[in-house]
Structure formats: C-alpha cells, structure tokens
C-alpha cells in the first residue's frame, strides 16, 4: 500500500499572538472598504462642522459643549476602524485566549492533493478541499472555515520561502474559496 505524500505539513500550537491575529483577520474581513470610507467621510465632516461652529458660533457654554461633542464623535468615527475597533478586538481575543488556553492543544495539518488531514487530540478530519466553506488569507494567518462558524487557523510563521510553491498549489486547489483579505474589493 503506497502512502500519500503531503504537499505541505504543519505542526503547531496556537499562541496568544496567533489567536489575536486570527480575530483581527476575521474582523478585517467582515468590514468592507465602503463601510470604512463612509465612516471616515462622516467623521471628517463632523470634525470640520464642529470646528467651524466652535470658532464662528461658539457662544454659550451649552453650544460649546455640543460642538465639542460633535468633534469627539467625528474623531471616534474616524478612528473606529483603525484604532478603537482593533484595540477592542485585541483585548477581547486576549481575554478569550487566557480563559481557554488550557484547552488549546497542538495540531497537525497535512495538505494532500485531494484533501486536508487535520489531527488534534480531540479532532481527526480528512476534509476534501471542496468541503471548506471559505479560506481567508491574511498577513499573519490563514483561516480555514469548515462552516460559517467553525474554523481552523494556521499561523504563517510556520512557513518559509521554500513553502511558497506548496502554498500556491493549495491556493489553486481551493480555487474561488481562497480569499486574500488585502486584495478583496
């Protein structure tokens, strides 16, 4: 009986850093560029209107407070996607990881021509490429979604330049299911 040779294998354990980057990648994927653009435009408008009114019609303490609030809302809106949102996700992911770190075990993943073999202490799966719901490629992690809710993330730190060809092949095998977060519209 001949053994199948894997295209690529990875043996790893998810660290706090990986977990945070997985959460950030998922968040990045969920927010579209148009959402960011709208929030930024509205924020800049609020800041300009607030500043203008504060300078030219800022008489009376209540009015001044109102315009300062408008500027603060504008700043919040502008920084929401870039600073506030990611920070909140980071904090939440860190807390989640620390609460569950005893349960995170090592995992072995082997990519073959026709399927992906995943082995951990509580899960063994031979999953054909067509069974994946989606695969997200971010700067630091690759997330393999089994369905909308359940996923397996692989940190990119495991791969070296030698693995680029293998990763390209996996990308080809996954076809349209493989989405690069930075390249999407």
């Amino acid at each position, binding site marked *: 009986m001949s053994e199948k040779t894997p295209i690529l294998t990875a043996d790893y354990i998810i660290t706090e850093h990986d977990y945070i980057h997985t959460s950030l990648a998922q968040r990045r994927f969920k927010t579209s560029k148009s959402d960011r653009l709208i929030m930024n435009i509205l924020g800049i408008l609020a800041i300009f209107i607030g500043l203008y009114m504060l300078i030219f019609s800022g008489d009376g303490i209540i009015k001044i407070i109102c315009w300062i609030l408008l500027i603060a809302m504008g700043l919040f809106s502008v920084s929401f996607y870039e600073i506030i949102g990611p920070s909140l996700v980071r904090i939440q992911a860190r807390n989640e990881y620390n609460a569950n770190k005893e349960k995170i075990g090592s995992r072995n993943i082997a990519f073959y021509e026709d399927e992906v073999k995943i082995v951990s202490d509580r*899960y063994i799966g031979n999953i054909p490429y067509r069974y994946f*719901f989606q695969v997200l490629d971010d700067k630091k992690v690759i997330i393999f979604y089994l*369905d909308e809710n359940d996923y397996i993330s692989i940190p990119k730190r495991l791969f070296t330049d030698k693995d680029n060809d293998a990763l390209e092949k996996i990308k080809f095998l996954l076809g349209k299911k493989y989405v690069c977060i930075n390249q999407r519209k």
Partner: protein
Amino acid sequence: MSEKYNKCIMTIEDNEIPLMMYGNAYMIAHMRRGRLKGKEWKASIFFAIWCGCMLYMALKHYDLISNPVPTGISIICLYMMTYYLFILPNRMKLKGEHIYKSSHMLNKTEKVKITRDGYTIENKCETIIGYWTDILDCIETNSYYLMISEYSKRLIIISKKCLDDEQNEKLAEFLKKTMPAKYRKTKK
C-alpha cells in the same frame, strides 16, 4: 484501566440532523448561552416600562398628542418586547440554518459512541472526541438531545429518530446521571 472508561455504553448509528432541527437547536443553545439568554426577563423589563407609560397616559386621558414622550417610549418598549420574544429567536434560528447550509459536515450521517467519560462522533470525514466535563449544557427536547460543548463551536445533537424507546430511555437516564446539574428537559 482506560478500557473501563472508554468502554462503549451505547452506539447510535445513522444520527442525521435535518436543517430545521439544527436551526432550532442553535436557537435553544443561544437561549442558554448567548444573546437570547434571559430574553423573557429582558422583555418583561420593557413590559413593565410599557405598563408604566400606559398608566401615565391613562391618567392623562390617553392624550397621545400632548404626551409624545411616553407615547414614544411605549412604542419603543413594544418593539423591544417583540424583538426579544419573536424577532431575535427567529433570527437565531435562521442563522443556525444558514450555518447548516454553509457546512458540508453537518448534514452527514453520524455514528455516535457514548462512553463513561465522553463521546465520539464519527462521520465520513471527521471524528470528534469529547468529554462530558466539556459539556456546559445538556438539553433534551421532544425530538433531540442537544449538548453545548465548551471546547468546540459545533453543537452536539443526537436525534431521537435514530433511537428506539429503550435506547432513548437509557440515554436520557445516562445523561441525567452523568450531568445532573447541566441536564434540562424542554418541550421546545
């Protein structure tokens, strides 16, 4: 020694989970641990505020035009009551169905092995191993057993259709005995 713990108490063949069942189970899981938790309490708070507004308006002879604030609050409260009691559960059910449709694994026929310490779920592509200590909640409904695991995001569902009366009784008894504090029976 480990044989004693891993000895198979029951094997359930052909455990099949239909779409509607998964949606319903997803909703129940969220009622126990999630956004739907305590929905009756949340709705009753809005009901109490609504009652207060109604009482206030009754004292004012239901003059809606001159009392826009209580009218507005009572409309919002009515919406929030409907939201918690009907809209959100339905939304959760639809989300569960959506997850089911997105998966190639959930619609597969499974074989479930029950042992003293845990369970093993096998289908064509996967083997999932779990322990009773991981289970946060075990809920028996009229048509299935639902277990929410701390370890996995996937719901563990055992359909009663694939069990005969004796097996059903045995499983219910076993789960009750193994997880007395986590076992619940619901008519939903």
